[in-house]
């Protein structure tokens, strides 16, 4: 070590006595020379931020601590807010605060240990603005479908503006574009971007605003995370589309915008439709309407025609029905009279038959016939009676002739045996039998002495 420290040792020999101020000045010079640019890492404690804007705290680790100061000029450049207990990495120089004889480190820059300062700042601001409601989805407005005029807040240099204009005019060739030219990175860019948004709002001619820039590093895009920009976008009366960097880049402006486009070109596509498609749509709508209406007219006409036809048909049918009615009546009359006639005829026939079969006639005829019949009957009876008498007389004579008794008169006898059995054959008797013999005027009993059959002699 070749600083004032070693000088101090040498100069003690002649018993040079320093005042406190002198010594302190020596120490200060020594520290400031040897520790003009150091990196330090530690935890923040005893954080104090008085009205002056300077920030005071201690940096400590497990065993030691050192006083640290962040002067206002450095503090305002700090992107994130300091917190008690935060672990940071800082760069600064050592110095001595002479009134108190305390050495301290004056920090120039610092960032949170582990994550980048920007990241922490981003999260902190995001949290704070979200709490304020700047990112509320309820606040998001829908974009106009057919903006007549589009505002763009971006840099006039760079590819972004050229890409956007080219896409916008390709899709909607007659678009009115108002550009608010702003620097999109670096010191003060944020304020200018915010002013650009406000300026277009005051101008009032545009229907939608695109705020953005092309891709870049996180630091390049940082302006779009600045509170002033985020607020201007959130407060814009005109709907805002954010288009910062590439798809993967997310800024707080994106959260505050009504619509986030992944790239400037995409933003241009989002804000305007394609004119030719719109014209085609317009034509097709008109055509469809015309087709529907003419179809409607035709169908109404057909209905009318059908109704008229139906009416005519009805009249025709009425006539037809009248005719049929007439016919039916005629046929009914005809039928009725013919059936009446038929019935009358058959009635007449029956009547005729009836009359034909009337008993009166018979009776009448009977009155004539009966006396004749009676006469005939008498005559016949008389005839029959005489005939019968004659017959009886001859029968009596025959009877008389046939009577055995008449035969007996002529000398014949009848021989009976036993109880009266007539002996007709020789075999009927035998010798010794008693027989009765009847002659014409009496009878006598005989004893058979001998039986002599014919031929036996």
């Amino acid at each position, binding site marked *: 070590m070749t600083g004032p420290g070693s000088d101090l040792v040498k100069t003690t020999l002649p018993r040079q006595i320093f005042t406190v101020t002198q010594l302190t000045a020596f120490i200060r010079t020594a520290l400031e020379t040897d520790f003009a640019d150091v990196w330090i890492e530690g935890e923040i404690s005893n954080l104090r931020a008085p009205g002056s804007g300077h920030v005071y705290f201690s940096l400590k680790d497990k065993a030691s601590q050192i006083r640290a100061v962040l002067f206002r000029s450095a503090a305002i450049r700090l992107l994130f807010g300091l917190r008690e207990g935060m672990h940071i990495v800082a760069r600064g120089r050592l110095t001595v605060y002479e009134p108190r004889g305390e050495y301290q480190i004056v920090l120039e820059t610092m960032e949170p240990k582990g994550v980048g300062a920007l990241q922490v700042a981003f999260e902190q601001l995001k949290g704070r603005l979200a709490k304020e409601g700047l990112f509320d989805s309820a606040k998001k407005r829908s974009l*106009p*479908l*057919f*903006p*007549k*005029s589009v*505002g763009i807040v971006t*840099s*006039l*240099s*760079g*590819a*972004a*503006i*050229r890409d956007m*204009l080219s896409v916008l*005019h390709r899709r909607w*060739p*007659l*678009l*009115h*574009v*108002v*550009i*608010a*030219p702003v*620097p*999109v*990175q*670096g010191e003060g860019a944020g304020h200018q971007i915010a*002013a*650009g948004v406000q*300026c*277009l709002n*005051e*101008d009032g001619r545009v*229907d939608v605003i695109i705020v953005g*820039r*092309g*891709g*870049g*590093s996180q630091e*390049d895009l940082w302006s779009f995370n600045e509170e002033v920009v985020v607020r201007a976008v959130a407060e814009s009366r005109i709907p805002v589309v954010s288009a910062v960097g590439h798809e993967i880049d997310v800024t707080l402006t994106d959260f505050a915008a009504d619509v986030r486009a992944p790239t400037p070109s995409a933003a241009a596509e989002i804000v305007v439709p394609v*004119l030719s498609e*719109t*014209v085609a*749509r*317009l*034509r097709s*709508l*008109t055509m*469809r*309407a*015309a087709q*529907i*209406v003419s179809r*409607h*007219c035709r169908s*109404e006409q057909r209905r009318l025609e059908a109704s008229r036809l139906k009416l005519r048909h009805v009249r025709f049918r009425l006539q037809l029905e009248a005719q049929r009615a007439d016919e039916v009546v005629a046929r009914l009359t005809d039928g009725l009279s013919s059936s009446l006639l038929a019935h009358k005829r058959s009635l007449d026939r029956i009547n005729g038959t009836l009359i034909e079969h009337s008993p009166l006639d018979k009776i009448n005829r009977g009155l004539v016939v009966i006396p004749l019949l009676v006469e005939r009957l008498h005559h016949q009876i008389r005839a029959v009676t005489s005939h019968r008498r004659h017959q009886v007389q001859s029968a009596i004579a025959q009877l008389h002739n046939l009577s055995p008794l008449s035969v007996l008169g002529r000398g014949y006898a009848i021989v009976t045996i036993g109880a009266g059995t007539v002996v007709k054959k020789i075999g009927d008797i035998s010798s010794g039998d008693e027989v009765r013999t009847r002659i014409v005027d009496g009878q006598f009993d005989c004893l058979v002495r001998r039986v002599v059959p014919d031929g036996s002699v």
Partner: protein
Amino acid sequence: MAGVKFEQAMARLEAIVGELEKGDLPLDESLRIFEEGIRLSKNCLRILEDAERKVEVLVQEQNGKKRIHAFTQADEMEEKSPSEEQSEE
């Protein structure tokens, strides 16, 4: 704003076609809204025809005044600052 008028006209035209497509309107009512639709579509086309391609640059001056001028290729050069945009795309 013409943009709004156009948008409303398109929306109304779509609604009219939708209404006609439903097909439950009496003929005279269909004819009435059909005429309205035709009028709207003519207006829409006229709005499109009347549009004028224009690119303007709106600059806020230091004194708070605004200045508008047409955008030209020269603007790109004029606005370019050496420190800016080096890393962009």
